[in-house]
């Protein structure tokens, strides 16, 4: 294989990455703009980060977002891992294909429809919209991502490891906690981080299910932008991008590491 970077390769790489990341880069740069005018560069400054932390409404929204992300990611991780276990371990039960399809459906379902149907459901069961409805909605959205990540690990899992543990005297539950869980833990953490970041930056489903007193950061930013661009929002977005990037990178590294360990 030719490992040298030809001119063509370099050009396509630059164009591709520019297409993907130029807008984000612009946003990050302008968050350090000294000028109040969003599109005019007035020198380097971190003043908008200071202003951001003094902005009570934005900080409150950020806190709500963080709590929702943590809680919904935790719920999604538990449910998603259980679903992955059922799908890989339970053999061929009737309706397995249907169940698999249904677990994965939220991944491809238009978010507007997911959001709308959840809203209708919450109204029907008379649940006040707010913190809990967003948390439940995000759990629904992110669970399938956890399932995908954990299931792919379980499918390459050597079942004889569990048999060996049982053979050596460990009952099924202890086998799960002392052998299965430690070995699939990296993929569970990766699934959690994915769910966490997905919940952090979701706007559509959150705005359908938000209520008075519970506004998430993406909703807040979106509504502020409609009143006019503000450098504070750039700063808030930059921090959000940072958190999401960190989450995705660690998720990737974790699942890669568990694959490498398996290969040994």
């Amino acid at each position, binding site marked *: 294989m030719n490992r040298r970077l030809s001119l063509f390769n370099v050009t396509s790489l630059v164009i591709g990455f520019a297409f993907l990341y130029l807008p984000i880069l612009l946003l990050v740069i302008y968050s350090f703009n000294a000028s109040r005018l969003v599109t005019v560069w007035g020198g380097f400054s971190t003043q908008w980060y200071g202003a951001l932390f003094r902005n009570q409404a934005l900080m409150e929204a950020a806190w709500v977002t963080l709590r929702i992300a943590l809680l919904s990611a935790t719920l999604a991780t538990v449910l998603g891992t259980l679903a992955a276990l059922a799908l890989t371990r339970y053999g061929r039960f009737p309706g397995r294909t249907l169940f698999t399809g249904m677990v994965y459906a939220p991944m491809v379902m238009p978010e507007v429809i997911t959001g709308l149907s959840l809203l209708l459901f919450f109204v029907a069961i008379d649940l006040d919209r707010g913190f809990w409805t967003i948390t439940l909605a995000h759990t629904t959205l992110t669970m399938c991502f956890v399932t995908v990540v954990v299931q792919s690990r379980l499918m390459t899992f*050597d079942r004889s490891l569990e*048999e060996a*543990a049982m*053979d*050596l*005297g*460990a009952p099924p539950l202890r086998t799960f906690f*002392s052998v299965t869980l430690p*070995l699939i833990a990296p993929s569970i953490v990766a699934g959690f981080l994915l769910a966490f970041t997905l919940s952090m930056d979701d706007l559509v489903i959150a705005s359908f299910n938000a209520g008075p007193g519970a506004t998430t950061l993406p909703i807040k930013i979106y509504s502020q932008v409609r009143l006019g661009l503000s450098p504070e929002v750039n700063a808030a977005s930059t921090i959000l991008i940072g958190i999401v990037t960190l989450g995705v990178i660690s998720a990737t590294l974790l699942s890669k590491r568990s694959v490498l360990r398996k290969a040994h």
Partner: protein
Amino acid sequence: MGAVRRAFAPWSNPDAKPLIRFDNVTKRFGDAVAVDHLSLNIFEGEFFCLLGPSGCGKTTLMRMLAGFETPSEGTITLGDQSLAGVPPYRRPVNMMFQSCALFPHMSVEKNIAFGLKQDGMPKDQIAERVGEMLRLVQLEKLARRYPSQLSGGQRQRVALARALAKKPKVLLLDEPLGALDKKLREETQFELMDIQHELGMTFVVVTHDQEEAMTMADRIAVMDHGRIVQVATPGEIYEQPKTRFIAEFVGDVNILEGHVQGQENGLWRVQTGYAQAPLTIDDPDEVLHSGQAVAIAVRPEKMVIQRDPPRTGALNVLTGEVWDIGYLGDWTVYRVKLATGEILRVTRANASRFVENPIDWDEQVYVTFAPDAAVILAE
């Protein structure tokens, strides 16, 4: 080899009580029958081999003993205890897995200690026992290593140590040496025999490698299609195979087909298409009748190849042409084509370093064998 190692033959003692008893055991997976109404006794202290081609049911049989599969019919008894309904983690049986199945997130010593910890053994006793096991498999220096840092052979030893640590009544070994290269495999075979001898434990080995079975086992059960075809010592399996399947599966064999002509002076006369005169076979245990179709099995090393015609009146003379010669160092293999088109395999030990005027390609040769070198197998 195994049979002559020591005078140990509880299976020929009618009063001996078997340690493991399979009683009319059947295992079905859906429509497929993996084990078919099988009965088998294994005695304490035995090195027992289940031998057969893949898919013959030998692994299923072992997994039923370990408790990973439940028999569809029949019972398995260990000592005085029926194993029905006893889960794998309560059986006094440990297994060495084909893939080793070492826990990748635990060091060598933690792996070996795992089973002892499940029994709630005190910490200092665990440490002592782990040390003992490490010495047994000569891995003291690698106690802190992780499985990914070990070679294939070392992993196999850890797996063995882990399975032996709990001093099980029976050790099950599933294709234990499959992943090793030939030299290491032979060494490990003898090591396994020494360990088994030293601990006096009952070993049950599953293998598809007949050489491995012959080397290690006290007795071999040859399996085919979920049934046991013959249970006997390695020597009996090789020299007195019960069926054509065993004769062909264990070692090399020449099969000559024919019809029984009759019996003379206790020797069977069998008319075949390979020679004018009927062949004379000394196999007095067979009960045959005239005209019956039989197969004569002769091992390649029990046939003699020569250039000069045998003396007149010699028994069992076949003529042919040397088709192929394979020089293996210790042995030379001749493939001799008979007039009928069949190819016989004849081996000769290379007892001396230089042979004058050796038998060459395309030469006309005579192949003979003694009446007691052959076995008659009823078709």
